[in-house]
């Protein structure tokens, strides 16, 4: 690694992903860093709580010159002599805080600028700990004002702790900001805390900023908040049908909305994986003019051997009916629906087999439940849990791939399957429907079928249809390979990012352009 003082070309701001967590975003990050060995990268990783046992899931390429980590829900530790009270000199801070609390719902970027000043102040005045701030009388006064303004009919206890859990990570983030690596360009992989951090850093160093959203952070948070039972739906004095969400949930969502708006507002370019996500970004306040679509891509030529092996295998046995799932065995992938689907498929096609491949360590309870469900559905002869596999050795064995996720962006696994000539049956999530529809205008027919989320009957019907029609299956196999090679090749995607990096940095810093 080179000196930390030297600014990196790109600083990637990452929340709960690379290099500690594997998944689509991390794959993409690793791809970008590895693709540009001539550019230097710094990483700013935001996590919830430090896990001393956590290990990198990736080997960091040599062009990563600096990595900083911040944990937003860790207990505060400080060696500085701390104050017991918030000093009187914080009056302007409280004034700004009050103003922000009043104006934030407007979503006006100029009002949201207030947050920057507030966080700046927190970053600079480190003698006041969060606990001291939180327990100060002035803070209490602000909390009461906000409560009276927005949710005077909700449980005050819940409101109080909701505020605490909303403010604490921002406070921690502000305190971590001085450690943010210097860079000529900031690139974040989501809105939320990472998006805010990137926006703050870009502003501070007068650098351009890119946001690439794989999912829609805000939508995911809203889903979390709506289905969570941990935000109590309190008894209200005036229950009303027109407000299905409690004020507390609205408050919670509102805060993530504010973070999202700040990020959208500051980002010079907002990259989206596919059209539907771009629409969502517009809905949440992104400027349509800055949105550009850059999908995920893979090196399709790496899948060529798999493609050949698969074709050879099918030639020997055109009646083969092997359906595969490749991914982490976790609840968001809805493996249980997959098992129900398998049951229904096997009822009609007794010679069908289902292979479930992928790491199982993330949600061990869920894995146990799945194995139990498989036994309960008497699928032992039909379903096999393989654990982690090498995709290129796994894909040739499949006649069909199935994806039952309830939430996805643009899954790499679909691209790999298509490149290896495996048609896909997928739930209608993320970009799946778009991809599998093919490009009829460009003479590429569909390369898979789509079913409703959680609908085992529909999924099973789609599987049966393809497994019983080898001609259709083989047509889709060809279409998939074409589609992947032409539209989802890594080089297209990397070229797009390269161009973004160069265009943005030429405007602000000629050195990078020279380096590039």
């Amino acid at each position: 690694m080179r000196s930390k003082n030297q600014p990196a070309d790109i600083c990637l701001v990452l929340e709960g992903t690379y290099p500690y967590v594997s998944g689509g975003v991390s794959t993409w990050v690793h791809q970008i860093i590895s693709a540009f060995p001539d550019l230097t990268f710094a990483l700013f990783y935001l996590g919830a709580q430090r896990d001393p046992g956590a290990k990198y899931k990736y080997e960091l390429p040599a062009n990563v010159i600096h990595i900083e980590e911040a944990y937003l829900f860790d207990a505060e530790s400080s060696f500085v002599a701390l104050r017991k009270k918030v000093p009187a000199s914080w009056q302007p801070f409280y004034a700004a805080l009050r103003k922000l609390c009043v104006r934030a719902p407007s979503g006006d970027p100029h009002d949201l600028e207030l947050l920057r000043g507030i966080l700046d102040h927190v970053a600079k005045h480190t003698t006041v700990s969060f606990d001291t701030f939180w327990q100060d009388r002035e803070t209490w006064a602000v909390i009461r004002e906000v409560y009276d303004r927005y949710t005077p009919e909700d449980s005050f206890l819940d409101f109080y702790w909701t505020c605490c859990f909303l403010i604490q990570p921002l406070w921690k983030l502000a305190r971590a900001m001085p450690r943010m690596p210097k860079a000529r360009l900031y690139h974040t992989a989501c809105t939320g805390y990472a998006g805010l951090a990137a926006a703050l850093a870009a502003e501070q160093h007068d650098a351009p900023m890119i946001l690439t959203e794989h999912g829609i952070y805000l939508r995911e948070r809203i889903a979390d908040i709506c289905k969570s039972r941990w935000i109590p739906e309190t008894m209200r004095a005036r229950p009303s049908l027109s407000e299905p969400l409690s004020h507390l949930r609205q408050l919670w969502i509102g805060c993530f909305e504010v973070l999202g708006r700040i990020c959208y507002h500051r980002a010079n370019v907002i990259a989206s994986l596919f059209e539907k996500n771009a629409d969502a970004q517009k809905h949440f306040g992104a400027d349509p003019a800055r949105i550009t679509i850059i999908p995920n891509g893979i090196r399709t030529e790496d899948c060529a051997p798999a493609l050949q092996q698969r074709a050879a295998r099918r030639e020997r046995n055109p009646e083969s009916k092997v359906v595969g799932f490749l991914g982490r065995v976790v609840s968001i992938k809805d493996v249980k629906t997959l098992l129900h689907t398998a049951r229904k498929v096997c009822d009609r096609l007794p010679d069908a087999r289902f292979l479930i491949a992928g790491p199982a360590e993330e949600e061990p309870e869920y894995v146990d439940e799945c194995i139990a469900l498989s036994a309960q559905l008497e699928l032992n002869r039909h379903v096999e849990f393989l654990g982690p596999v090498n995709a290129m050795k796994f894909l040739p064995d499949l006649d069909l791939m199935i994806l039952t996720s309830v939430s996805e962006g643009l899954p790499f696994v679909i691209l790999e399957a298509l490149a290896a000539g495996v048609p896909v049956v997928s739930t209608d999530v993320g970009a799946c429907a778009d991809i599998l529809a093919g490009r009829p205008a460009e003479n590429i027919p569909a390369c898979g079928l789509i079913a409703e989320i959680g609908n085992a009957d529909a999924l099973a019907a789609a599987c049966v249809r393809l497994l019983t029609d080898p001609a259709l299956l083989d047509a889709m196999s060809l279409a998939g390979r074409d589609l992947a090679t032409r539209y989802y090749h890594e080089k297209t995607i990397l070229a797009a990012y390269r161009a973004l990096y160069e265009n943005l940095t030429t405007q602000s810093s000629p050195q990078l352009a020279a380096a590039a």
Partner: protein
Amino acid sequence: MAGIGFQLRRLTATRTYTGVLGAYASAAAISAGPWIISITALMVLTWLLHQILPADQIRLFTASSTHVYAFALIITGPIQIILTRFVADRISLKQPEKIYPSFKGGVVLASILSAVLGGIFFLRYVPAPLTDGLPLFGILAAALLVYVSAIFIASVYLSALRKYYGIVFAFALGYGIAVLVSWRLAQTHGVTGAMAGLLIGHLVLFIFLALCIRRELGRGKGPSFSFMRGFFKFPDLMLCGLFYNLGIWIDKFLFWWLSKSNVQVSGALHAAPDYDLAIYLSLLSIAPGMAVFILQVETDFAEKFHDYFDTVNRGGTLSQVSAAKNRIILSLRAGFNSLLKVQGITTALLVIYANELTAWFHVSFVQIGIFRITLFGTFLLVMFLAMLTVLFYFNDRRGALICSLVFLLANGLLSAVTVMQNEAWYGFGFVVAAGLALFIAATRVNARLDELEYHTFRVQEA
């Protein structure tokens, strides 16, 4: 999926606020009951002994027993308050099995301290008639200190467990025996016999209390001395217990040693007959006020207090919480009103009829004057004690500490000043000190109530 937002779920652990600490709050007030019984018993006993023993022996007896009580209160004050807190915490944490061991530990700790202090004081500094060449009187007095301390420790458990009738009955029984046996033994063995009788009465009382506690709590399990961590965890509480009890006694010590009419009873044992009788008599006057206040606190106030925390925990809106707080304020106001009325009338009647009343006790003219003043002082003291109780309820330990420190310093300083003057000034130090402490305590209570919501949520540790 990027993002750590979903991690929030782990952090929203259920938080609830409790007012269980009320269990330890009223203990201070409740301990006044046994205190009144013991003063009465001692006065009755002294009156009985007048017919049997010569005046100097009576003086030795009363001065010794008074010192025993003073030492016992000062020694156990800090231990009592820490133990009460310990018991309240165990109850709220649902660890009842740890309560009984702390009783044993508390008794052992108080006994050791009492034995050391009592042994040194009575055997080295108080010459007394020997019995068969042995300093039996001193040994008995030191033993009495041990038992009185143990009894004070025991009363913590009974009051925390709300066994008021048990306490009153046990004390009545114990002191009944003490008076009878003492009176009987004094006839044959003089002052040493009287002291032995007093000791036997306390021994019976302690055994009775200990049995009550064990029957109530079972033997439990766990370390006996873990409560002592409280001395480090709540130094403010410990000091509050120490200062308050020192404050109650400091004027007496000053009068014993420094007043013009003080009597050296024997060695370091002094007395101030003028002042002592007046102040003990007036201390008896707190009974009605205390009874009324405890009744109000235990019934109406405690209910409102728990309602308040219920409102918070059950997800009440801020205006509901504030309304619950206002009900606490109303209840407190009602409590103080009745305290003021009852104690006011009692004090007024006693001041007016002081002459007639004190005639029974062979009280001199000077003592009647002091009695009238100290009556007023005890009136303020009762109010102060009530305010202190409220501060404990609201866990304002710092406030309680400040008030008791002010009380101690003011009583010490002002009593030292008045004791240098003539008899006309006696008692004023106590009055002003109690008044000052009451004023500060009331101010703290007001401030606390004003910001009760803030303090409710601010509290991170219990």
